[in-house]
């Protein structure tokens, strides 16, 4: 029993390392070859877990070989356009100037119901409103609406709003996040002064965010009033 627990722990660490090495991706965002590698890795990991007569090294080596292959292929794909096309395929324009390209739909084996469903997912209910719709290699549909159907933006009416700054969490659960202090160029002393001004103790802060213009938002812990 103990050996199974240890084997499981080893494989868990190997799998986590392998997936981390491959990089952050959601299942839905994966390219076909990445999806294949992820599925095969999970299958391979299960074999030494189920059969304790299998040397664990076999599973570990196979997992790492797949991870290496994946890293190598994505590196080559980054450098070579034709290789990328070969491995992942190509995006296909499905709608052009409000007209559906039926040949393209046949090529990607997409039914009109699939297309309408994907458009609805993008809040588009009329095909005529679409300037371009592109089926991406990961299966997502990117839609560009006709100019008269697009949302009005400040630049359309020649407005110049202030550029937004990103508020970053600087105190979490009463602890100062040093990386954010460095990013925002704020010393801990300045931060404590800011808290003093707001009449909050550091240990009473549940979350505090701060942006580049030093605008702070503080959420106190609920049990300390």
């Amino acid at each position: 029993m103990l050996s199974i627990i240890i084997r499981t722990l080893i494989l868990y660490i190997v799998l986590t390392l392998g997936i981390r090495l491959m990089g952050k991706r959601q299942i839905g965002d994966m390219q076909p070859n990445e999806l294949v590698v992820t599925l095969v890795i999970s299958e391979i990991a299960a074999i030494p877990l189920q059969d304790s007569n299998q040397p664990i090294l076999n599973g570990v080596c196979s997992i790492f070989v797949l991870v290496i292959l994946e890293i190598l292929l994505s590196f080559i794909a980054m450098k070579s356009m034709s290789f990328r096309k070969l491995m992942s395929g190509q995006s296909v324009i499905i709608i052009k100037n409000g007209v559906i390209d039926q040949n393209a739909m046949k090529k990607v084996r997409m039914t009109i119901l699939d297309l309408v469903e994907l458009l609805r997912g993008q809040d588009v209910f009329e095909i005529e409103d679409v300037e371009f719709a592109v089926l991406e290699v990961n299966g997502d549909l990117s839609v560009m609406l006709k100019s008269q159907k697009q949302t009005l933006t400040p630049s359309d009416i020649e407005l110049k709003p202030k550029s937004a700054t990103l508020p970053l969490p600087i105190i979490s659960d009463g602890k100062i996040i040093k990386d954010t202090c460095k990013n925002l160029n704020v010393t801990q002393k300045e931060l404590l002064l800011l808290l003093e001004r707001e009449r909050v103790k550091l240990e009473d802060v549940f979350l505090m965010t701060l942006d580049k213009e030093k605008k702070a938002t503080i959420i106190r812990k609920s049990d300390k009033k």
Partner: protein
Amino acid sequence: MKRLIAAGVIAVIIAAIHFSGNIYIKKVIKESNHLLESCITEYKKSANPEVAAKKLKNYWDKQEDYLSVFAHHDNLDEIERAINSLSVYSQTENSEIFYEYSGTVKTLLHQLLEDNSFNMHSIL
């Protein structure tokens, strides 16, 4: 680029494990075969085959733990069982069974070598 370097390092480690594992398995099988041959010679001479068989058994028991890192545990257990039986029958005059077990050990050792070496048979 960092990932590519990490992948390269892992590839080197895997290659090193593969080659050192292969060399180790070959060495153990060569030594086991040598001990088995001396056990058979001793049996033929009616000298002290049980001592040679014990030597083989002790050697295999010592190496089995390390071998289990690279080889399928079922195969190793099968060889261990055959060596144990060989050790028992080396003390008797039942030559038919002794030779049968020595043949089994030889075949299993050869199979282990074949399973763990790089050839068309192990790839396919």
